């Protein structure tokens, strides 16, 4: 902040100026009188007239709003099953599908190949009949009983 420069350097010594400045800054503005009684007659009369006119104002009838109708509660909907229970049918269907898939993809019995079939084909047997000799050769034997087929192979490495 710039130093105050006394325009009249020879007027008053600094301490006196400082004192004056302090007194000046300490001054408080006197607030105007509030009470109507402290006002002049014309002011009082003017304010009283306005008061009277204001208090005698004709107030229009208020438009009271109609209360909102109370909404009827909707009937309780059917209770929903718990979420887990709702999934049961889907789980059951998935299990069935999985079971079908597993049964369909079961590895088939190893067959000796088409060679055995070509040599001798067993006659069709019914489920009612017992095991039947389906094929016989020097190095393999095939037995069949219904859907079950047993094939025995001779280990050619031992010869």
């Amino acid at each position, binding site marked *: 902040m710039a130093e105050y420069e006394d325009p009249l350097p020879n007027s008053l010594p600094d301490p006196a100026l400082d004192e004056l400045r302090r007194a000046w800054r300490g001054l408080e503005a006197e607030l105007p009188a509030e009470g109507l009684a402290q006002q002049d007659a014309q002011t009082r009369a003017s304010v009283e007239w306005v008061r009277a006119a204001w208090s005698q104002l004709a107030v229009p009838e208020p438009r*009271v709003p109609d209360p909102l109708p109370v909404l009827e509660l909707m009937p309780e909907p059917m209770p929903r099953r718990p979420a887990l229970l709702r999934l049961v049918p889907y789980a059951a269907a998935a299990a069935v599908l999985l079971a079908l898939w597993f049964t369909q993809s079961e590895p088939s019995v190893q067959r000796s190949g088409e060679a055995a079939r070509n040599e001798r084909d067993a006659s069709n047997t019914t489920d009612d009949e017992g095991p039947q000799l389906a094929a016989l050769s020097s190095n393999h034997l095939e037995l069949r009983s219904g859907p079950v087929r047993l094939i025995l192979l001779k280990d050619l490495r031992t010869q």
Partner: protein
Amino acid sequence: MPLPPDKAPQEATRTLIREVLAGSTDALDRWYRAEHPEVFRLCVGFLADSAEAEDAAQDVMLHLHDRLARWDSSDSGRPWRPWRDTVVLNHCRDRLRKRAARERAHVRAGEQAERAAAGVLPDPSVEAQQGEVRAALEAVLAQLPPREREAFVLRDLEQLTSAEAADLMGIEAGSVRSLLTLARRRLRGLLAERLPGVGGADSDG
């Protein structure tokens, strides 16, 4: 000159508002009829236009009703009247801001100034002159700048203290007193010579 009517005791107001909040239709009607006159007069004071004040008062009542739950109706809550008056004041300030072009306001003020300056003031106590009284009142209030008008309405008409008025207006109490002094001086200039029996002389010499 009669002062504004006594206000309902705080406790009665709290009880009534609790009944309104509880959903009582009858309490809502009673609350409306108890509050609306004061709200309307405040709006006239702030807006200096009774036609607009009628709309404003209806809007304010709906506003107050919508926000009643926000006012703490317990015994330790804020007093009702300052809360209500704050809502009214803010609403009227918004309306004043949104008024059509300043030219229209100036034209209105000019017309009202002409009416304010003409002839002896009607007597508020005479029922037959109520229409003229209202017109003259609006004209006079319209001559006050908005802030002076607020201070005058809250202090001299609503009988609030400077501190209460300052709290509502969002200014210092000293500023309220200054605005009030200016408003009174202006009113004196507008009305003194028109008041019967007062004359034009300044009695305090």
